[in-house]
């Protein structure tokens, strides 16, 4: 969720000076109910995930929607922007129509297009009522903060925006969600939440050549940096068809379903900031809809990810031994067993998950198992903060090498999972990818831009007949 919004944040920051020159709009025509409704819609859309100032930043405590959330990347720090109603530093000068256009079409107030880091292809489906409520909330429910978030300066090709017009023409469907009369109101509500505000497909749908979401295999899974957003279609083997609706709802509300899966990475953030704060009926509605998403099977899958494994008994085999073959088991014993149990059963109360019957360990793709060892789990629901430490470079428990993670991961796959191995190379690749999906999405966006630029250049060259000229332009 955060990932896509980051790039748009970078763009909105460019809009701020222009916004400052505009005429103020009427701001006193909203009811308290509308503002509160908007607050809820903003939670469902998880605006805060990217746009809240980091609590740790000095002087930024409580700076709701004021931007400045830094993501460190090899391209430089990327900062989210101020979307408070400050007319000088935020979006206070946006009219409701301009606000709606930014949300649904990805067009800034000054007419420049946003990158799809802002999930406007999902938000396009927002109802007029919700857009109005959001506008009410952003104009009246958010405290204006007259502060410019730190500027983001991205190198080429990330600083070119106009080519997004072509992309939008191809892939943006600017239409509201229509009620499907074949389903009840609860299902329709769930679809609306999942497809627009929840923007599930942003991460969970595979993408095509130009990084558009592939509509034919919606929610069939997609890579996200070091993580993999799994197949959440109703397929009983590749997807979550074996989950009950109640389990899907519990997962959304808490990020934790014993014997099935636990949310980490971007999904933990979505649960923390958004889903855990939605009403029970909205969560149930989303679960009702998700459970009906058409099944997509990956033919390589043999059984559901959560169905693998059983209690492992290896304790006696490693005592006193130093055989290299048991290195993974010794790492498990030394660093994991104290919480997950020497047999991988987790804690008796289920608070610490078992590693057998665990989708992260059993999934066909090993991405999430490697990523969770590197980055851990950090999720807060209500007053309950779940933190599994990571074992990456900055681990306060013990930093592990690529080889050690491969050994540990292989031990886990073979003891509690499908039985395959994890290579050092896989860990090396995962380590080079950010724990946040931002880098991959930026790379994808960059590929799109590059492709579009090349198409443009080719066309121009054909018209002008001069390759040399085109090269000069590229430089």
């Amino acid at each position, binding site marked *: 969720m955060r990932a896509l919004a980051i790039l748009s944040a970078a763009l909105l920051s460019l809009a701020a000076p222009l916004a400052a020159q505009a005429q103020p709009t009427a701001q006193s025509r909203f009811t308290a109910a509308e503002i509160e409704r908007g607050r809820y819609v903003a939670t469902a859309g998880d605006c805060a995930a990217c746009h809240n100032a980091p609590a740790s930043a000095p002087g930024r405590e409580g700076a709701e929607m004021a931007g400045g959330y830094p993501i460190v990347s090899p391209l430089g720090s990327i900062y989210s922007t101020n979307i408070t109603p400050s007319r000088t530093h935020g979006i206070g000068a946006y009219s409701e129509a301009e606000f709606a256009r930014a949300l649904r079409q990805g067009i800034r107030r000054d007419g420049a297009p946003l990158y799809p880091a802002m999930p406007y292809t999902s938000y396009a489906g927002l109802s007029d009522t919700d857009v109005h409520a959001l506008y009410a909330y952003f104009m009246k429910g958010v405290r204006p903060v007259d502060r410019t978030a730190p500027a983001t300066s991205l190198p080429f090709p990330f600083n070119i925006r106009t080519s997004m017009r072509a992309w939008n023409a191809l892939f943006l469907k600017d239409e509201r969600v229509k009620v499907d009369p074949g389903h009840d109101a609860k299902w329709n509500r769930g679809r609306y939440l999942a497809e627009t505000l929840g923007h599930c497909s942003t991460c969970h749908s595979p993408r095509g050549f130009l990084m558009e979401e592939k509509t034919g295999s919606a929610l069939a899974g997609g890579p996200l940096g070091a993580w993999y957003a799994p197949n959440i279609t109703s397929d009983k083997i590749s997807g979550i068809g074996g989950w009950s609706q109640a389990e899907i709802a519990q997962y959304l509300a808490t990020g934790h379903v014993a014997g099935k899966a636990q949310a980490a990475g971007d999904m933990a953030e979505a649960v923390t900031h958004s889903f855990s704060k939605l009403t029970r009926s909205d969560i149930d509605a989303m679960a009702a809809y998700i459970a009906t998403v058409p099944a997509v099977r990956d033919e390589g899958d043999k059984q559901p990810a959560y169905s693998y494994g059983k209690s492992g008994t290896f304790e006696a085999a490693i005592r006193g031994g130093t055989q290299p073959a048991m290195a993974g088991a010794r790492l498990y014993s030394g660093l994991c067993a104290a919480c997950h149990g020497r047999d991988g059963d987790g804690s008796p109360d289920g608070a610490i998950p078992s590693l057998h019957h665990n989708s992260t360990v059993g999934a066909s793709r090993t991405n999430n198992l490697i990523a969770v060892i590197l980055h851990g789990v*950090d999720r807060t629901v209500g007053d309950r903060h779940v*933190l599994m430490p990571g074992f990456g470079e900055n681990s306060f428990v013990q930093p592990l090498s690529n080889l050690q993670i491969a050994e540990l991961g292989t031990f886990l796959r073979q003891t509690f999972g499908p039985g395959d191995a994890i290579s050092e190379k896989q860990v090396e690749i995962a380590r080079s990818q950010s724990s946040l999906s931002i880098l991959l999405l930026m790379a994808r966006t960059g590929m799109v831009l590059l492709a579009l630029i090349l198409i443009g250049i080719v066309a121009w060259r054909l018209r002008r007949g001069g390759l040399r000229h085109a090269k000069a332009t590229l430089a």
Partner: protein
Amino acid sequence: MREVDFIDGDAAADVVIVGSGVVGALIADQLAGEGHAVLVLEAGPRLNRADVVENWRNFSFERRAGNDFQGPYPQSPHATAPLYWPANDYIHLTGPDAKGFKQGYIRAVGGTTWHWAASCWRHLPVDLKMQSTYGVGRDWPISYDDLEPYYCRAEEAMGVSGPHDPARQSPPERSRPYPSDMVPWGHGDTAFAEVVNPHGYNLVPIPQGRMVKPWKDRPACCGNNNCQPICPIGAMYNGIHSVESAERKGAKVLAESVVYKIDTDDNNRITAVHWYDADKVSHKATGKTFVIACNSVETPRLLLLAANARNPRGIANSSDQVGRNMMDHSGFHCTFLADRPIWLGRGPAQSSCMVGPRDGAFRSEYSANKIILNNISQIHNATKKALAMGLVGEALDTEIRRRAAYGVDLSISLEPLPNPANRLTLSKTRRDGLGLPSPDIAYELGDYARKGYDKACEQLEHIGKLFNADEFHITTDLNANNHIMGAVIMGSDKRDSVVDGDCRAHDHANLWLPGGGAIPSASVVNSTLTMAALGIKAADSISRSLAA
């Protein structure tokens, strides 16, 4: 941010810190955060948590039952630390209570808080005024009020949970609440409190450097009861956390680097320290300010063996007090079977403690004490006893279960007074792996604490009766508690003390000797939080000095 310069293996920094335990690490973390170039020289190796956890699990039953907490930690051949299974006699002990001074400390990056129980007690305000209040011991040159803000910062840095209820705080004089409320009590704590508290023993929650919720990058404690010898999940504060934090801020930490020589100039300022690397190649670190924070054994040992022409009795030793006034909370144990199940061993190793006997007018005559309800699982003790009874099969299981449920272990700490005759000196015959003199220590508990032992026994007999105790036993041999204090004692008079209230050496304007060694009065509570507070106070002092 300034960085440490390395030229041909020699280093130049703003601040050179010898020792990477909790005190050195907190100072490094603060000063690196302020942008100073910080070099930390640690004699011992860098550790892997998993290795230590597995070393412990691979130990024999006897070593586990015997609490061999030193044994699981790998040592550098050039930086020996005491071992007792078997004894390596690294520290040669003499004196009437030599057997009671078998200290355990770790020489490794992160230091001894790898294997502590994370008890984070404060001294009482009156503990800093023992001479003026009770006519015994020494007064500190600073007051509790001077120290209090640093206690708060130390608690914050170490992520301490403690009771928010002032009635359960010892002491209640606090300017800030604990970073988190107390770790909830287990059945044993509650059951014990119900019986003893009506009699004034005041069993209270132990403030401790762990939480039942995540704290920064630390996970929540999940009750492995394995704090000693090591927290297997990193939920308990370890000095290594501050080391790594300092490194992220630019501090440079060199492991297996043994400092053995200290240079001084005409004004007796420290100009450099020399260290041996793992290949015994010597290097030199120059700096503006220097910190020696190697605990109360290795700090005085280094100061003494680094004697030079300008300082023939040793660095910082014009008072002849370096190595003197060695203290520890010399302790003993009381064990019995209660008349009801207590089930020790749920949650952290130390959870509650009786502080009723911590202070009173009696302190003019004899030592105070504190009585910890030792919350280490009783299964090892129960098993030893049940095996000795010759039981087998189901009878053995039943007896182990009964003893694990009903068994009580109380750990009592006394307060020895600073005595210059309790002294660390350099051995004339024994040398370490580098050929440097090993330490000798002479120790006598003293009449004050000896009388306190007798009074504590009366209290324990009473507590035993409250539980209709079976197999009631009080140990007569003292045991060390590894709270090593003294050796570079703090005072306002440079003729009878080594450092001032900022732990700055009287003899050297740019040398700080913070930590347990500076503590002038032991109190009866674990010394780490006080050491950490003194370290942070020293860091402020160093910061001001660098700014001047």
